[in-house]
């Protein structure tokens, strides 16, 4: 396997404050990588760095392209879909319009229509509500819509920022099983940021653990899960 996304010495800054200190990360093509850590460790910042939403230093390579310093829109157009924290719902637009926004960079009408149906197949609840204003959906439905919107880009890589946040355990389970299916059948690689380490490690095949902007460990997900000390000290379960 080769790395689809790779960072070398990635640093990030909010004004004068440094939030990331030289991260080396790799996301394998076709795999699911998870990035774990406590509140404020820099997980969201890492995802935002990859999308050019914060000031960074260091190298970011996606499929051979250098992303550092590029505007967000251009990075997205290369095939990186970012499902942001808080879901990024266009709340006054309908579910259908939200999906259309996800496909706004594409011009193949037929393909877009196919993909809308594909999203509805994965998330039948969205189809039932396709004409409803997205702001009126439940939290779980909005998270599904956010993933659906990301799918509409036909991305090669999906960045998921705490998709389990604020959702009932049953919905989380359902959502994560769909993410797994997406990864296998649509060959979408994923970088998953999670507070819920247990479920993230179950889904992912590779894991990184960060603390206050620094990498503390990396390895296959099964190995991290099997290490009792790490589980106790860093993951809290």
């Amino acid at each position, binding site marked *: 396997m080769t790395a689809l996304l790779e960072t070398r010495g990635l640093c990030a800054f909010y004004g004068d404050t440094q939030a990331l200190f030289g991260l080396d990360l790799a996301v394998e093509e076709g795999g699911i990588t998870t990035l774990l850590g406590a509140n404020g460790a820099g997980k969201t910042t890492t995802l935002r760095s990859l999308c050019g*939403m914060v000031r960074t230093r260091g190298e970011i390579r996606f499929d051979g392209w250098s992303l550092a310093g590029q505007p967000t*829109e251009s990075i997205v157009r290369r095939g990186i879909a970012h499902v942001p924290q808080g879901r990024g719902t266009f709340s006054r637009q309908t579910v259908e319009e939200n999906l259309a926004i996800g496909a*706004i*960079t594409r011009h193949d009408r037929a393909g877009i229509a196919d993909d809308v149906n594909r999203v509805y197949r994965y998330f039948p609840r969205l189809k039932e509500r396709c004409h409803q204003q997205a702001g009126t959906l439940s939290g779980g439905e909005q998270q599904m819509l956010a993933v659906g919107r990301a799918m509409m*880009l036909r991305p090669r890589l999906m960045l998921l920022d705490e998709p389990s946040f604020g959702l009932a355990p049953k919905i989380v389970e359902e959502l994560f099983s769909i993410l797994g299916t997406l990864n296998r059948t649509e060959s979408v690689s994923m970088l998953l940021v999670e507070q819920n380490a247990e479920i993230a490690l179950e889904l992912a095949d590779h894991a990184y653990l960060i603390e206050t902007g620094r990498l503390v460990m990396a390895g296959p997900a099964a190995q991290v899960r099997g290490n009792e000390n790490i589980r106790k000290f860093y993951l809290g379960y």
Partner: protein
Amino acid sequence: MELFLHQILAGLATGGIYACVALAVVMIYQAIDQLNFAQGEMAMFSTFVAWQLIQWGAPFWIAFVATVALSFLAGVAIERIVLRPIRDAPALTQLVVFIALLAILNSGAGFIWDYQIKTFPSPFGSGELFGQSLISPHDAGMIAVTLMMLALLYLFFRHTRIGLAMRAAAANPESARLAGIRVGWMIALGWGMAAAVGAVAGMMIAPVVFLEPNMMESILLYGFAGAVVGGLSSPAGAVLGGFAVGIIENLAGTYIPVVGRELKLSIALAIIIAVLVVKPSGLLGRAVVTRV
């Protein structure tokens, strides 16, 4: 009764102009969270350009289309050159720039075309329309042009890809960027369209109020009133508010003896204050909740 009907129709006609101005104001407000105080002067300047083209011998509708196109380009250019560099500056900085823009356009027009009042031709002719005296051909034409433009804008925003992208960019800029939308250009496009809508309003109202550098002063005020009545967050509300303000202004001027012609303008202010006190988000607007 006939006087009443006449006033309503005349109110609808000027209300259409207020609706255009209100719409232009709301379009920019939605995109950048700022009221563009130079909106009226931009429309005035556009109208002078149309007048100049007509003076040079262009037929009215050719001049009309050319002016709308030029105004669109100028609106895009103003956003790119003047406002883009101060996108992240404090609100007050942007306000000062709007006022500077207002002053520059106002005195620029005065410098190029002087302050003498000019007549502006109506494309709809004068005299009676279908042998009745309730509504003049120009008023009827003004209403028709306004409604047509609103319908076009509605179709554009509802049914085109760029329209959807512009709505997305205004509603949630960060999320729009993550969908690959070039938000900066969408805002510039919004400025261009607002300038074009303002140009149409200017060319329609100029035959009524005559052409001079200060012609849009009171109209912008009414436009703001319309936007506030309808709700600054709602384009449909702005249009409705514009029409409402036009009718209220006319009826008050006719039936409340104290108001007359002189105090008409204070009606706009009274409306703004009344709405802000009773329903700050306007008729169709949504209350904005900010997390602190």
